[in-house]
């Protein structure tokens, strides 16, 4: 690869969030007029890498070199100045502003008399070029547009040019809200831009798009680049195999004894956007995994099961939920550990009209012993615990209640290995005693704890895998399956 032609180069870039190594030494380079496809499974580090390129994240270690010059203080402003643009997956338009006003936001040079007209001409020119027949007006308020049109505006805005140059556009799942027709328009435009010397990084779970659009494909896994090769050297199978890392498969495959035939079904749920009547079923005492790429309808189905007020959902026993995002959905930050555990079982703790402090204490102490919450005093504030122990308290809340079905929304995010193993053991034990678990996880290794795994894609169940059929490759294969679009 000609060195002088690199517009951007990363050397040994690491990014750590506490103990989590989101990026663990990435070397990466990109030439002018090249399109790189960036693929990887959940948590491989794609988004972190992109944030570092866009200047919104600073690497813990490593160097960034742009057009041959090392960047000491790389920032959002600097990234714009050197011509790096980014289309983030979470839309970064202001919903209260019009399309033209949003265009002005990303161009500080559009000001003075007639700025609105100039911004409108700029964005409309690009929209017409990329998505002919888009039906968007410059005066439309973004909040009123459909999600697909918002994504079109966002993409078109990234390609508008005023003062700052345009060298690299990073597209993170740019087609996730586009229909097949507009997605095709976008990818054709990307190829035209490449021909004009603009570089692109395309992050997508649509492997067909990546294979068809990129010149080179970079596969990431566990915060590292595992393979870089010309796109023509890949096909779907090789891509999937590389992402899954075929070598480390039989890892910790714990044995599960199937529940006997005739065990009553306690949960039966059809996802809201399921076109057929494929359903998730859980029998008493089973551990059921929900897999697939993050944000493809798993949490939504868990919440539907929790609410149990929609056709297609039937739940026959009390339910408790262990939240994944414990800071916003899980803990009560001002309460003690004991209060946080007891809040799931207030009815059982009641004595007359009041809560009995003795019973609350008893419940908390029982679960502290069973689950091993490390604290000198359960009366301490919940925030005095480490993240893993906070999560244990949330498990204690769910397991200490009278719920027979426990829903888990990716609860092990950012939890250390020791805690994980303790909780896995507890889940198996509780399942033996007849509790049912629905477990959404983004970590494939955790799926080996399940009797049956449902793989989700675009809000639908695409595959059900029994414990014996389970392998990371099959899960990834199903997650990236391209059908229905």
């Amino acid at each position, binding site marked *: 690869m000609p060195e002088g032609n690199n517009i951007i180069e990363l050397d040994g870039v690491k990014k750590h969030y506490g103990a989590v190594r989101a990026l663990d030494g990435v070397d990466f380079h990109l030439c002018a007029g090249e399109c790189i496809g960036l693929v990887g499974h959940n948590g491989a580090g794609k988004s972190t890498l992109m944030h570092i390129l866009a200047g919104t994240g600073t690497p813990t270690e490593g160097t960034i070199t742009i057009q041959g010059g090392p960047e000491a203080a790389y920032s959002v402003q600097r990234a714009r100045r050197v011509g790096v643009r980014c289309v983030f997956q979470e839309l970064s338009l202001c919903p209260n502003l019009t399309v033209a006003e949003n265009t002005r936001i990303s161009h500080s040079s559009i000001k003075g008399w007639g*700025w609105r007209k100039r911004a409108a001409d700029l964005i409309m020119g690009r929209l017409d070029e990329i998505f002919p027949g888009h039906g968007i007006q410059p005066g439309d308020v973004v909040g009123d547009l459909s999600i697909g049109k918002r994504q079109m505006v966002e993409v078109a805005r990234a390609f508008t040019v005023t003062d700052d140059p345009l060298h690299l556009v990073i597209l993170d799942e740019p087609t*996730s809200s*586009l229909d097949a027709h507009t997605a095709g328009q976008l990818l054709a435009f990307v190829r035209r831009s490449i021909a004009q010397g603009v570089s692109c990084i395309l992050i997508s779970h649509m492997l067909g798009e990546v294979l068809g659009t990129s010149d080179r494909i970079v596969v990431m896994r566990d915060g590292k680049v595992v393979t870089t090769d010309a796109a023509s050297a890949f096909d779907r199978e090789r891509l999937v195999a590389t992402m899954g890392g075929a070598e480390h498969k039989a890892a910790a495959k714990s044995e599960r004894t199937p529940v006997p035939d005739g065990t009553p079904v306690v949960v039966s749920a059809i996802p809201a956007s399921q076109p057929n009547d494929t359903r998730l079923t859980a029998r008493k005492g089973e551990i059921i995994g929900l897999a697939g790429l993050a944000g*493809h309808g798993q949490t939504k189905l868990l919440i539907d099961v929790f609410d149990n007020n929609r056709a297609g959902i039937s739940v026959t026993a009390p339910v408790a939920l262990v939240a994944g995002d414990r800071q916003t959905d899980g803990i009560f930050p001002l309460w003690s550990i004991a209060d946080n555990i007891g809040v799931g079982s207030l009815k059982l703790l009641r004595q007359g009209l009041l809560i009995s402090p003795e019973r609350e204490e008893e419940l908390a102490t029982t679960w502290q012993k069973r689950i091993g919450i490390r604290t000198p005093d359960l009366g301490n504030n919940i925030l005095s615990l480490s993240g893993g122990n906070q999560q244990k308290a949330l498990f204690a809340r769910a397991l200490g209640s009278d719920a027979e079905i426990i829903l888990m929304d990716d609860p092990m995010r950012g939890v250390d290995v020791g805690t994980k193993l303790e909780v896995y053991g507890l889940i198996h034990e509780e399942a033996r005693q007849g509790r049912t678990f629905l477990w959404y996880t983004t970590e494939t290794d955790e799926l080996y704890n399940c009797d049956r795994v449902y793989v989700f894609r675009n809000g639908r169940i695409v595959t059900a895998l029994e414990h014996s059929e389970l392998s990371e490759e099959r899960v990834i294969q199903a997650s990236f399956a391209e059908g229905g679009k």
Partner: protein
Amino acid sequence: MTTTSIPAPVDAGRRPLNVARLLRNLLPTLSLVLILLAIAYLNPRAISYFGFSLMLNLAIPIALATIAQMFVITINELDLSIGTYVGFVGCVTATWLHDAPLIGVLILLASIAVYAGLGALIHLRNLPSIVVTLGMSFVWQGLAILVLPKPGGTAPSWLLGIMSFKPPFVPFPILAAIVIALVVHFGLMGSSYGAVLRGAGGNGQAIGRAGWSLLKTKVIMFAMAGVFGVLSGMALIGITTSADANIGNGYTLLAIAGVILGGGEFVGGRVSPIGAVIGALTLALAASPLLTFMHLPTDWQAGANGVILIVVLAARALLGRRA
């Protein structure tokens, strides 16, 4: 969990949404017209040059305070100190600005700087603006009492002159309201930096990613609130001719009500300067003139404002129901 990727239907439901938006935008005007019709019905003579001058006299300071509040609401904050701040400005206007204009001007400029500083403090320390401004409301009240321990003072004569200006054909309060609305509309809705300021309320992260300083937007918006608070206090003293430390206390909630009545929303950067001025006028009319003509005691004033607010917001909620 962000968006699930369901292909979006093209061009679905555009028309009805715009009709609803149009109605929503017209709602502030409709409420004002309704109040005016009620007044015209109860007392036709009030609908005259002199009648409007009298009825809307106090609407000017209310409109200015409402605009001040609107700047703060634009960036998803709330100012609970605007009322006592207006009172403080009133006390300074009736004393220092009259006796020693230079010192008076300096005090008022310093108070605007304090407002700007609050914006910086709230942004940098990530404090809830409600708490900070609630605290400041007691500070302004205390300062006002220090400046003017008992009611009194004298308005500067030039200020009295401005506030008793009688333009031909159009009553002064109406003219003033139009000027205020248009100036702020141009600044906040029309200017290119105004888009950035409103965007900071709509999606601050996006503004930050585009390379703008969020600190600057907060400082500017709080400083603008300070500027319009000063204008409000001065206008108030120009009408009442003397001051009292408690003179502006009711303005805090009136200003919030005016912004909301005018089509603004507490979060999301959705505000309308023209609507806010109309909202302030509606509240000013509904308060005393309407009640006087209905032969209701002024004790009912606050309650009447509340009822209007609830009715208008209920209508808005019905119109704004998104599919």
